[in-house]
């Protein structure tokens, strides 16, 4: 499902004022994949992430008309997911969790037998991303995969735009080295 910023605003109003459950459902379906992905990247725990997304989305419904004050809903949700995820991790006394390779094959699992070569490259890139340090990986995914700007990423993670750029540069450098042998053979 694709929603434009305008659609999201419209749905937000329907939820806030008309208490429209169908509008709420559309928001949920639209945001679930990205929020779930994000929570998983922080917690490395699919079931816990499912719970976190559900809790955060429930709060959206409970806000009633205060939901209107939320200017950028997507940003707000990502921030809420990050806070909720870190709260859960805090109770277990760990920081960002190191990803197991097997845990995250979301990106590769959707592509069936279409072009083996292509799939292999995607697979390699995904593995390169997974090999990044947790925070660096988180920054990279928010910008590259979710399309957030420096400013928004900074607001979600609570780190400065400068630090974000450093994380990004490091990520590209590592991915580049990781893929060097593979990509270079065609040149």
């Amino acid at each position, binding site marked *: *499902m694709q929603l434009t910023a305008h659609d999201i605003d419209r749905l937000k109003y329907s939820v806030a004022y008309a*208490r429209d*459950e169908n509008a709420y*459902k559309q928001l*949920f*379906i*639209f945001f*679930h*994949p990205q929020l*779930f992905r994000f929570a998983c990247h922080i917690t490395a725990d699919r*079931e*816990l992430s*499912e*719970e976190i*997304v*559900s809790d955060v*989305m*429930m709060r959206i*419904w*409970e806000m009633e008309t205060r939901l209107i004050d939320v200017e950028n809903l997507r940003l707000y949700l990502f921030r809420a997911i990050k806070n909720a995820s870190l709260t859960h991790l805090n109770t277990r006394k760990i920081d960002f969790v190191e990803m197991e390779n097997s845990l995250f094959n*979301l*990106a590769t*699992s*959707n*592509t069936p037998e279409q072009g083996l070569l292509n799939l292999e*490259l*995607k697979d390699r*890139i995904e593995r390169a991303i997974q090999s990044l340090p947790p925070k660096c990986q988180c920054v990279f995914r928010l*910008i*590259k*995969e979710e399309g*957030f*700007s*420096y400013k928004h*990423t900074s607001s979600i993670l609570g780190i400065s735009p400068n630090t974000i*750029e450093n994380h*990004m*540069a*490091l990520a*590209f*450098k590592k*991915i*580049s080295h990781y*893929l*060097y042998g593979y*990509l*270079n053979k*065609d*040149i």
Partner: protein
Amino acid sequence: MSNETFFWKLLSRKIAGEATEQELKELEEILIGNPYWQMLYNEMHKKTATGDIQETEAHQAYAAHAVKMQIQGKFNSPSILPAYNVGKNKSVKRNTFLAIGAAASIIVAALIYGMPYFEMKKQQPGSFNEIITKKGSKSNIRLPDGTQVWLNGGTKLSYSNDFIKNTREVDLVGEAFFDVSHDPAHPFIIHTNKINIKVLGTAFNVRSYPQDETVETSLVRGKIEVILKSRPDEKIILRPNEKLVVNNKSTKLEGKLRPLLQEGLATVTIKSVTPLAADSSILETAWMNDELAFFNKTLEQIALDLERRFNVLVIFEDEQVKQYRYSAFFETEGVEEILSILSLSKKFNYNTEGKTIMIKK
């Protein structure tokens, strides 16, 4: 700043949409002189594929989420409320619930069990909690560990008072939907007459009425492990949207999607849950929304569901009629209306006396 680091920062700005005109020009110049970076740049510009699987997962997640919202009273639409008089008027239904629902429909009894039970379960002395729903009613409870359980009519759930300490174990007779709270250190185990189900944290439906032909468990999300009591060494792992069907009476084979093993004469199969059209709900949990859904079921099996749902007694005066098969979906219809609709599709006659319904050819 090294040339390389400078390039990575430029690339980063470009991808994040932060680059100025000037920076874009510089980036292009660097790329021309470096084919490897050019390739990497192209790869990094491809959109990450987001597939149908994620959308399906989102719908599943919403199904579970919506149930949670309804249970906690966030949504206005009627849902998991006991069905007393299932009339067309939804608000009447709600008021009925508010007035007498909580008080009358659930018998929650913390029972100190007598000697026979003590002998059976010596290792767990102390008291047990037992929750029983009458036919024609439903209820929702929260266990001490936060797990939510929705009980369909004619169901009994029991658990020990020291439930939370070690493993979380419950006994179930009847049908219930479990949303198990996440706690890997304390596995959650459900005992039924045929199977034991072990979970870490997940949502699923269990249907194990002694009168039914089959024992079924349907998984909405997460992962569960099923153990047949007669073959305790074999574990069956269920994935989301799969359901496990164990034949109770060892009669006919049902479905052949993944025949697993022969359990004496009884058959064990795994098939997928049955989606209902229009939204993401599935047939297996329709009862939670006061809906009745049948897919290719005999009238005999349907009658058992009607008995549980409307607290009536159905008597067949003809053996043949029992085997008539129907697929149907009912939202607000009463029992009489359901029977009249079914008999339109394949003809049978019936008459009602008080709470008893007689069905004949």
